[in-house]
């Protein structure tokens, strides 16, 4: 599959942000495990791993803006709609189950993980319906 210039830039940004995320997460876990942070610094360290993930959302938005190929842009937007529908549906269902005491509590960052999984589902749908992984 040949990537468009916008796709290449997006891939680079996501790889970079993923590496930053891994570094920040490992660092934050280590610091908390060793009780090395407290007070306001603990808040900053705890939020740090979220920032590259937010950056990936921004990178996806940037890709949508920068992609000059309207068909590829349509496929990506469809992927993000699958991601949103999938993650919000499960989060809503789980929320009600949790509030009625049927399931245990789950951290809300799982919504992001489900959203990325939904992107994968969207990509699969694109592949099946359009014959394209893009």
């Amino acid at each position, binding site marked *: 599959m*040949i990537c*468009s210039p916008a796709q290449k830039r997006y891939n680079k940004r996501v790889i970079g942000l993923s590496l930053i995320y891994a570094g920040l997460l490992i660092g934050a876990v280590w610091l908390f495990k060793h009780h090395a942070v407290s007070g306001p610094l603990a808040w900053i360290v705890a939020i740090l791993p979220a920032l590259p993930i937010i950056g990936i959302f921004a990178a996806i938005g940037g890709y949508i803006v920068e992609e*000059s*190929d*309207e*068909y*590829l842009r*349509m496929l990506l937007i469809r992927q993000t709609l699958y991601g949103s529908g999938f993650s919000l549906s499960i989060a809503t269902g789980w929320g009600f189950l949790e509030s009625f005491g049927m399931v245990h509590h789950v951290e809300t960052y799982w919504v992001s993980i489900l959203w990325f999984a939904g992107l994968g589902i969207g990509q699969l749908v694109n592949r099946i*319906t*359009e*014959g*394209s992984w*893009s």
Partner: protein
Amino acid sequence: MNNRLKVLRAERNWSQADLAERLEVSRQSVNAIETGKYDPSLPLAFRIAALFELPIEAIFSAD
């Protein structure tokens, strides 16, 4: 929408990649338009028409 893109391309001995390069779009886009899976925007339809030196209605028609 129906279109004559495949016929027009074949008349010029262009591959999908050739046409994609001339239109500055991906080969997937050309394939999706040719197979009727995707209807191009008006600006892209005008670019296609200009490339083949034909009016839009000579390339695209309603179902």
